[in-house]
């Protein structure tokens, strides 16, 4: 296994030129994630238009895997419905789960099951200690969605 299988071109590109960097004023959802062991940090802001993600902004620091994963995620979820985003999270987690075949969750007919650039992170599976780096953005996203959901729920009361 060569190291280039881990550090694919697209990963280095997103690391050096991260997309959707910054913060949102009064975001609809916000979450912070970190890997205490390695110090990777991520701040995620989301704005919704109805049940669609209308804006994503990311701040943070960390290794090429954690930061490129966040950058690619920000592109992948932008414009998607909440259901599609949840589907995408599940697809990504399946890809990162070393117990299942890498392609298991992919389905070209479901918008939430098309990973696109994110498929470049498949190589991380062969470096188990780095999987948590790739997953950081996604667990942070789950947290943001959860906090959003509970605030929507509260507003409906």
């Amino acid at each position, binding site marked *: 296994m060569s*190291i*280039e299988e*881990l*550090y694919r071109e697209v990963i*280095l590109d997103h690391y*050096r030129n991260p997309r959707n960097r910054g913060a949102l004023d009064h975001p609809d959802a916000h979450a912070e994630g970190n890997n205490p*062991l*390695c*110090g*990777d*940090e991520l701040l995620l802001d989301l704005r919704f238009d109805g049940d669609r993600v209308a804006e994503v902004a990311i701040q943070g*620091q*960390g*290794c*090429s*895997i954690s*930061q490129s994963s966040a950058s690619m995620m920000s592109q992948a979820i932008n414009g998607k419905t909440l259901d599609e985003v949840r589907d995408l999270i599940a697809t990504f987690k399946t890809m990162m789960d070393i117990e299942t075949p890498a392609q298991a969750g992919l389905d070209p007919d479901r918008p939430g099951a098309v990973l696109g650039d994110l498929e470049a992170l498949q190589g991380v599976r062969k*470096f188990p200690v*780095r999987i948590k*780096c790739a997953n950081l953005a996604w667990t942070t996203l789950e947290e943001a969605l959860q906090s959003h959901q509970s605030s929507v729920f509260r507003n409906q009361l």
Partner: protein
Amino acid sequence: MIDLSHLRLDFPVLQRRVHGQPLVFLDSAASSQKPTQVLDVMDAVYRTHYANVHRGAYLLSEESTTAYEEARGKVAKFINATSRTEVVFTRGTTTALNTVAFGWGMDNLSAGDRVLLTMMEHHANVVPWQMVARRTGAELVYLPMTGDHRLDLDRLPELLDERVRVVSFTGMSNVTGTLPPVTDIARMAHEIGALVVVDAAQLVTHVPIDVQQLEADFIAFSGHKMLGPTGIGALWGRPSLLEEMEPFEGGGEMISDVRLDGSTWAPVPHKFEAGTPPIVEAIGLGAAVDYLEKIGMESVRRHDRELTGYALNRLTELPQVRVFGPEDLEQRGGVISFALGDVHPHDVATVLDQEGVAVRAGHHCAKPLTRALGVPATARASFQVYNTREDVDALVTGLRRVEEVFRVD
């Protein structure tokens, strides 16, 4: 240059290959590898002498007790303590520092008092004091660093006022390798009557230690960084302080008498060793001390200094590498933290690992220090007696590979 390469054969793990490459182990500051001489002694204890210590009136228990107490004597002699009773066996540096912070701090610190730490402390010498400060109302202050990551001793006099009751600092930074002038700091601290505690986790295995010269009141270190096993370490303390300090943990072994309405403590050092101690680990630490004594700590220090000098020199061949810590080899030991261009340390470590080179990446349990360096993390190469110039060459070759993968020019 002093040649200790013959020692490599004593360390079975160094024969290993990782990812198809010969192992180049450069993470001894996290934990060192163990020589056959330590492994064999521990194995022999378990196979032929093992029983609990200080208890049974039978031969095996006597043998275990003798070996355990002999190990204490070896550690005492290694640091030039006056008596073996000045050495308390602990689980490691962390427990040793907690023993002082809680044992001494809870009874002697109160609101208005200060504990002086430094910006280059390991979390083990920060967090216990924070916990004790929170309970006692004492305040923590931190001695800053200079631009080249030495302690800023010019700031020391103004910080050392009558409120400072404890000065606790590292004898050698686990991030930058910095060797502060321990004795000078101890003298200044003693002038205002403060207690002096030295975290010697790195110092003990890189530099000869003589507690008579250091002039500290307590020093703490671990076995596993000095070629011994995990789960064992030591706290050396001045006899009078050990006498008056309350134990941090209660239980079996540490008592003189237990009644329903109270207990009295066993004599020093046993009053600090509650419960069944790590018996075989202590004996293994004694064997590690024997091993280091046989090499001679002066030779260990010379080897470490020469290898560090060689490494610092070779790293200058890579213009994108930025090394943290002092340049003067008298003021630093064999721990080298560095950054490589804009490549994150974890990525550096992953690429190096594929080349067989094991380095640490992260904040090295010293977040205030890494923050002060202005980086979220560093990559760190650290040396032990078994490292060679060839290991440094492999590191440099590996770093060129990192540059290639990440297209750093």
